[in-house]
């Protein structure tokens, strides 16, 4: 068998590739200066497992409050739909039924539920150039509800450890349902407790 490894050529001939390997000389050259010692430094440190402990949140606005919910419980965000009012429904929390892709879903007013005061639209600075009212479809433990919001900011990620406790001055109902506050750009977003919200809705209104 011919001794291929002794073959003299401009580029080394590797029997694993029928053609010559171009550029393999790049790796056959000697190490640059300090290469060995530089790598020593980076190999010394413990490899920390980078498991992101951040939670993905959907940020939205209702009236003049910016709120957030964990994105795993957000099923869908849709255009505002016509809400069919239910007969004899006197509570302001229960808005009625919405038709979402053929499914009839209970629609509630998160603003009423959280007792957020109404504010005139002029006092609110929208984060995006146009205001878009949307419906958020939320699912927690197989309970699906729809609620309209004034504006959707989008998704963000935060470390749960960076959550601050809500200020004393906030509305009492928000105290119950708000897990904490975190800053985003110039805003302070209140993270809502989705399980508590759904459970309370089920007990009181649905």
């Amino acid at each position, binding site marked *: *068998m011919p001794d291929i490894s002794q073959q003299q050529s401009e580029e080394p001939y590797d*029997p694993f590739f029928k053609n010559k390997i171009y550029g393999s000389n790049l*790796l056959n050259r000697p190490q640059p200066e300090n290469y060995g010692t530089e790598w020593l430094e980076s190999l010394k440190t413990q490899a920390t497992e980078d498991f992101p402990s951040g939670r993905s949140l959907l940020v939205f606005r209702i009236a003049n409050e910016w709120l957030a919910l964990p994105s795993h419980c957000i099923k869908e965000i849709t255009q505002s739909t016509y809400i069919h009012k239910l007969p004899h429904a006197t509570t302001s929390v229960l808005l009625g039924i919405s038709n979402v892709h053929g499914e009839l879903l209970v629609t509630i007013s998160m603003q009423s539920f959280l007792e957020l005061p109404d504010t005139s639209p002029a006092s609110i600075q929208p984060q995006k150039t146009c205001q878009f009212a949307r419906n958020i479809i939320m699912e927690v433990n197989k309970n699906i509800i729809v609620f309209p919001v004034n504006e959707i900011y989008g998704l963000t990620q935060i470390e749960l450890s960076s959550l601050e406790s809500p200020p004393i001055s906030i509305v009492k109902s928000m105290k119950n349902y708000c897990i904490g506050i975190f800053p985003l750009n110039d805003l302070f977003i209140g993270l809502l407790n989705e399980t508590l919200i759904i459970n309370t809705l089920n007990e009181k209104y649905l």
Partner: protein
Amino acid sequence: MILLLKFKIGDKYYALNTENIAEVIPAVSLRQIPGTPTFFSGIFDYRGLIVPVIDLTQLTIGQPVTIRLSTRIILTNFTLVNGRKSILGLMAEDMTDIIDVDETAFQDTGILSQNAPYLGPIFQIDNQFIQSIELDRLLSPDIQKMIFSSSKSANNEPN
């Protein structure tokens, strides 16, 4: 299918099963330990652990390895004869490829070299022979003891 890391010793190709390979790192500068065999290139700090590195070229053909950019150190999960698990570094040249081989392609050479019991079955790719290295037969118990206790004494650990 078996995944093997291919490298060169001298002018011949060898391969090591990837199943015990933890990481492949550049050929860093090693701290030599006096009074140890020539094939024991030295030790280095790997994430807080002192890892001994063996020069495969020196061990196999008695010539020191040529340090190029393609020369790298394989960090293997090594089980010593006393059952202890540690990391052993193997330095070899031209370590740039991983190859996929069918189990049936391996042919036993039928020769067990006493001086090199770690040389295992051979297989062919494109008319080139590659010999596999049996990791657990790489170091004799005496050598294991010497190398790993050298590393430990550098680390000031009780034996």
